[in-house]
């Protein structure tokens, strides 16, 4: 399998933009190649800059609220080009502008609305499950199929090592380019995706491998085949069985946590969420469609649903929020991947130390507490 995040490989922004604009046209390239548009700079640079200042390279076309950032980035790049061209030293100006850029990125991302957060979670360059596999899972061996009906590309499963822990990985895959998106159904799994995940998780439990689940889906697929083959039953069985798997289960929402389709891979000992990911009982558009009879009020719905990481932490739905690099995971995939890796390592160390009966009791009590603050005895 081709490496997606190739060390030292750069992607000039112009190429990124042309490919994005071309849409399906990118299909002329081998599918895997297109993934390499995600990183914005050589890995070594990202790794370093994640801690100090954002990379000056624009990421794709950007979201509406990112435009001032992208504009400033273009100015910096032009200045650098000019400097090389004319041999004039703009060093101090560039340093000044980079300082401004860092401040602007921080200011923008410190005050994202719920709806803007949803946009970040859906950003086309945001790392997906296969990107995390590429970045943090060593010796990944993919395992296919549910041995009932089919192999669902919307769910990826396989063995590998994260921070030295042998694990079974399960996760949704939304797809990056048009072709892969269609193959993966945009991350909307069919019943066979949930059944495949369960089969591999039960395999893991049998041999004492912890499970790591990466959640990133708009929702389970609403189609005729999906209903005919029992999507509701498949999710329901996963909820029951994951609650009892005799091995540690760590779940991380890396992008979109779209309702039951997300929960179907989301029951475990710990649930973490990335800073700019969302998790909700319904998508903001869906909620808007119901309450306002149209998707125009998705921003209001996003606010009302309290679907951001900080609100979910307050509500006790998630155990921890994993901070993203300045400006979001899409600007620094490696920084994001390293944060996820550290979280998984730390969490697995704790969970592996528990005897299985104690682990299962704590898992049950964790679920048992869900919603206790949302009810009271009348009187």
């Amino acid at each position: 399998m081709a490496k997606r995040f190739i060390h030292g490989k750069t992607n000039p922004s112009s190429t990124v933009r042309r490919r994005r604009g071309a849409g399906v046209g990118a299909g002329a390239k081998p599918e895997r190649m297109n993934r390499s548009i995600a990183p914005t700079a050589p890995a070594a640079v990202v790794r370093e800059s994640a801690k100090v200042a954002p990379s000056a390279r624009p990421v794709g076309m950007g979201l509406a609220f990112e435009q001032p950032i992208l504009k400033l980035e273009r100015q910096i790049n032009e200045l650098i080009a000019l400097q090389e061209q004319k041999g004039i030293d703009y060093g101090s100006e560039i340093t000044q502008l980079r300082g401004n850029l860092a401040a602007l990125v921080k200011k923008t991302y410190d005050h994202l609305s719920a709806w803007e957060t949803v946009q970040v979670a859906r950003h086309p360059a945001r790392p997906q499950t296969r990107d995390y596999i590429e970045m943090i899972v060593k010796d990944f061996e993919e395992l296919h199929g549910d041995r009932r009906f089919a192999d669902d590309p919307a769910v990826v499963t396989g063995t590998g090592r994260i921070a030295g822990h042998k694990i079974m990985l399960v996760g949704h895959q939304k797809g990056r380019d048009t072709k892969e998106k269609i193959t993966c159904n945009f991350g909307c799994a069919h019943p066979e995706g949930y059944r495949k995940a369960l089969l591999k998780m039960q395999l893991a439990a049998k041999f004492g491998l912890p499970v790591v689940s990466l959640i990133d889906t708009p929702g389970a697929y609403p189609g005729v085949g999906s209903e005919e083959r029992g999507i509701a039953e498949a999710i329901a069985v996963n909820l029951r069985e994951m609650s009892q798997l005799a091995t540690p289960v760590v779940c991380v929402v890396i992008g979109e946590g779209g309702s039951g389709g997300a929960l179907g891979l989301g029951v475990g000992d710990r649930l973490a969420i990335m800073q700019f990911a969302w998790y909700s009982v319904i998508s903001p558009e869906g909620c808007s469609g119901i309450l306002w009879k149209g998707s125009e009020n998705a921003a209001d719905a996003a606010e009302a649903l309290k679907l951001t990481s900080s609100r979910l932490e307050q509500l006790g739905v998630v155990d921890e929020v994993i901070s993203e690099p300045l400006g979001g995971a899409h600007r620094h995939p490696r920084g994001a991947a390293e944060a996820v890796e550290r979280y998984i390592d730390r969490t697995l160390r704790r969970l592996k130390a528990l005897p299985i009966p104690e682990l299962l009791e704590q898992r049950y009590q964790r679920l048992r507490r869900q919603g206790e603050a949302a009810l009271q005895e009348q009187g």
Partner: protein
Amino acid sequence: MIQNFTTTMTAPASRPARFVRPHRHVDVPEGLWLNCPGCNQIIYRKQMEERLHTCPLCRHHFRISARQRVNMLGDPGTFEEMDADLIATDILAFHARKSYHEQLQEARKTSQINDGVLTGRTFIKGRAVLLVAMDFQFLAGSMGAVVGEKITRGMERATRENLPLVIVSCSGGARMQEGAISLMQMAKTAAALGRFHRAGGLFISVLADPTTGGTTASFAMLGDFIFAEPKAMVGFAGPRTIANTIKMELPEGFQRAEFLLKKGFVDRIVPRDELRSTLARCIDYCGK
């Protein structure tokens, strides 16, 4: 046609799902006579009610409240209700065009119960059971923290006291106004069922019209026995969401109980007048 309920669980990001229209919940208008949606004939209300709220001409099963269900299934006067005083607190302070707080107050008034489910111990033909009945009149029978908690407590009691568990689902899915907390009730109830299952408990899931979304995708599909009322709408995603997704007409009878039976997800379709004896027989067969 039943169009006035919801599923919250399934809409992909760009498509609106159907959801609760809490003002349209009672199937049967007041009056001596009524129009049967099954056969489109005018029928005598009293006759319909005497036949367990089914049409005397076509046996269309009218939707009934949780209280009516409990009275219909249990031996008279044996229902001991649990947790009747649990109420929702509107933890998100959810406010759209109407506030959830107001919706709750209205629903309590209309349905005469505190939230969307009744739970308790009762007897069915002399056999002790833990009975759960969902109420579509209360915000489309949606599952929020109170519904999830009451059902979980019911399951835990059934586990402790080795009681057969009977749940009659009638619900549009998870309750949108409680956000991710309502989603977590699916996991909570499924986990409690897991323990009940391990302890050898008998769970009979009865699907009434409609059972959709997060209710179907949690306990409703986890019965040792799964029975459905005739023509009950049972599914995950709403038909309109699906039709919008696939841009095609849906097959005839799609997501009806008979469709699920054919596809292998329901054990048997049980008309309302046979439900009590069917449940009693199941309990006997399983030695409970």
